């Protein structure tokens, strides 16, 4: 019952945050660090709440794109291309209905593989030994280096920067390392909220500050909503294609579905059409194809995130931090002893999608009033909450140190945005830094080169990596 209640609350919160331009699920989850302390002893409730926030936020993203032509996040930008022209034509209810129905349907379809994989994972885990996990981690670095950002060199620099940041604290034998004479603060390593808050929240607020918002009044039209639902089903080809692309990109460790919406948009535009409206002028197919990606990519990202503790997307990097903070050891097989954990994930995921779709369809008018809030108020509020999130994770024991670190990483975030250096790559490097170091030592201590190179899963991952290197331009999308 509590899971249902907190999924509902998370859905409302996520939708409201998601609607705000430039604030996607990553930023919404970062803000949750400020309230995670209130969930002391309520881990499962928080699990449901935070997952619902991530899911509903990505559906909420579409609102800003459709109504004001400023996407909630990078991913929703593709929806905006055809969504905003429909709003200008007075068909906003139709556009939003098409978007949320597609996103919801594909989200529900693509969670099925996750549900199938979970019960058999404990049998499969015996094949995942140190060499296999090491290879998967290295593969995730490769995938994020090759697929994000305009330059591979810059992405590699980003990954290495992240690894460097992750090495602050202690070495594998627990000896202090890079503690800068202040082990009480640095020994346990930097908090993920400081790095993610600095890299993502603050620079995005600058983007919002510079954006020009022209609000268009919403008058809920139930005929348009009904037609949107019908067309979302009729356009199943584009929708399913979006779902498949989203799920695939979500599965790629570290990459997630960021901007895969554009790939779906591009391929979807080549499929057989049911409407004649040109793309970019309000084509329903142009909304359905990218929206199919949205939640399907989240379902895909849940698999590496929960099974291996290797985040499947940028939002998953933050949610791992949150879940570990509240006490779940993500990637630990012992977690699979905990039926309540798995059930909460599945229930919360499904429930938040269903609730978000229903709320979005019925209360679109009320929700869009959030877009009228002065952007300066939004910016100040988010900055305050980000700062609060940062200082609260250390239980207010290191307010000065945490604040200084946030400033440093905000500057880094601005620099990355300016020079188009992949911020997700930095975050991934940071998160996997200790793992890659530990597994490298374990590999050296336990295996010979010959033993490593004769393992089937290792060979399969290496082959997959080679295919990715060879075809990198086909998969590549920009997200910095």
């Amino acid at each position, binding site marked *: 019952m509590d899971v249902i209640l907190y999924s509902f609350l998370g859905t409302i919160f996520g939708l409201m945050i998601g609607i705000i331009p430039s604030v996607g699920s990553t930023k919404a989850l970062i803000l949750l660090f400020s309230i995670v302390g209130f969930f002391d002893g309520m881990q499962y409730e928080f699990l449901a709440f935070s997952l619902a926030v991530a899911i509903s936020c990505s559906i909420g993203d579409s609102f800003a794109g459709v109504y004001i032509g400023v996407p909630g996040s990078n991913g929703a930008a593709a929806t905006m291309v055809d969504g905003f022209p429909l709003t200008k034509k007075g068909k906003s209810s139709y556009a939003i209905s098409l978007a949320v129905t597609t996103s919801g349907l594909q989200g529900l379809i693509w969670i099925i593989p996750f549900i199938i994989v979970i019960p058999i994972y*404990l049998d499969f885990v015996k094949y995942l030994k140190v060499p296999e996990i090491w290879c998967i981690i290295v593969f995730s670095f490769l995938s994020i280096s090759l697929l994000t950002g305009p330059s591979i060199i810059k992405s590699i620099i980003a990954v290495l920067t992240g690894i460097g940041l992750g090495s602050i604290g202690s070495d*594998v*034998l*627990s000896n202090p390392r890079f503690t800068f004479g202040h082990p009480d603060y640095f020994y346990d390593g930097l908090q993920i909220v400081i790095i993610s808050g600095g890299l993502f929240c603050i620079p995005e607020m600058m983007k919002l500050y510079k954006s020009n918002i022209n609000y268009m009044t919403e008058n809920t039209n139930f005929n348009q909503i009904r037609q949107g639902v019908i067309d979302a089903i009729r356009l199943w080809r584009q929708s399913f294609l979006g779902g498949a692309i989203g799920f695939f990109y979500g599965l790629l460790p570290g990459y997630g579905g960021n901007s895969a919406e554009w790939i779906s948009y591009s391929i979807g535009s080549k499929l057989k059409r049911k409407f004649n409206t040109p793309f970019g002028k309000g084509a329903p197919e142009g909304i359905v194809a990218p929206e199919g990606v949205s939640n399907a990519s989240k379902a895909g990202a849940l698999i590496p995130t929960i099974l291996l503790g290797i985040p499947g997307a940028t939002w998953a990097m933050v949610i791992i931090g949150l879940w570990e*903070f509240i006490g779940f050891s993500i990637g630990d097989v012992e977690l699979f002893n905990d039926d309540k954990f798995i059930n909460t994930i599945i229930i919360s995921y499904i429930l938040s999608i269903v609730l978000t779709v229903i709320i979005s369809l019925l209360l679109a008018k009320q929700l869009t009033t959030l877009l009228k809030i002065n952007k300066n108020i939004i910016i100040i509020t988010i900055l305050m909450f980000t700062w609060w999130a940062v200082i609260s994770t*250390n239980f207010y024991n290191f307010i000065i140190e945490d604040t200084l670190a946030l400033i440093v990483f905000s500057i880094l975030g601005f620099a990355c945005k300016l020079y188009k250096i992949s911020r997700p790559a930095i975050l991934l490097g940071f998160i996997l830094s200790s793992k890659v170091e530990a597994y490298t030592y374990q590999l050296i*201590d*336990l295996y010979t080169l010959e033993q490593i190179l004769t393992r089937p899963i290792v060979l399969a991952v290496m082959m997959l990596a080679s295919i990715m290197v060879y075809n990198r331009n086909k998969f590549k999308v920009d997200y910095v």
Partner: protein
Amino acid sequence: MFKKFIILTVTLGFIFIPALVFAETMWAIIPSQPKKSGMVKWAWTWGKYMNKNIHEGSKITKIDFKYVPGNRGKTGLKQFEREFKTDNSNMIVSTGGAATATLLEDVGGYDFRKYTPIVIHPGNMFVPVHKSYNPNTDKNLQAINGNGGSEPEHFASGLMVCPYTNDINKFLTCFKEKITIVRGVSSKERHVMFLNGELTVGRISANGWLSNKLYKKHKNKIRIWFHHCQMNFKTGQWGDDPQKEFQGKCFDDIFEKTHGFKPAGKVYDAYVLTRLWRDGLQKTFFVNKNNENINDLIKIAESTMQDKSFEKERFKKLGKYPVYIGKDAELVIQQIYKALTKESLTIAVRFVNEGLGYKVSVKEELFK
């Protein structure tokens, strides 16, 4: 409307703020984040039932938690010693890891002799091996997860394969030859690596052994090699684990069966020192000496021990280990310091530095 809101807020403030100020909340300081670690689970379980057993007339109205993470728990210990201990509303949650850190590392003057123990709840750790493992021929592969607190298991399995109980030089040479310490294994990974056969030796609590699904699945392939013997702190005598399922596997007995002589000597004493500190102070509540809430806390803890529902949950989650409260708990402190000699500590420090590879030092202040 706005005016009404302000009036309401101020009125509520007048009612609640004094209530908050005068309520005697006892803060249990947990030197970590609120993760579901053994320490946090233990503190939450005790806290939950202690709150139910607060007696009439007690100054304490509630027991709540404060988290002070950092420096692998040492920040919390240091801050308690430096700042929190003088506040009557604070008590520290201390664990086996904190005890080992107090023995071997700098914890800013944190010292059990300066505080009054309210509850001491000892525990035990079990060392499982694969059934196929032959200590004479197979390399012993052990994990080191860098979290500290696992020194007694490394020490003991080292002694099992290198029975030089009185010669640290021979012991260390043999240890390095027969045992591979696999670096960088986290506490969560070590279970999978052990069950996958990548590690020969495991490390698990009683509760984990009995309830972990993965371990249950592999029960036909693994067995308990030994566990640490447990001290009765009232008598100072060593004995077996109190739980029937694990009896007959105490280190000293298994060692004698394996090597034909009782373990004794300087290296053995150093091992005993680490196991006594780690297991004896496995989970504890301490307050500063002269804290005005000592009597209330002891009374609450004693009532909690009489609570049948607590007993059920305690046995299930924390094992059937005895609990020492008040004066009995002070006996635990006396015993652990009695075992502390400069020679034993020096050998333990050498073992950790050279055998396990992380830097610790002999703390002179422990002998003052």
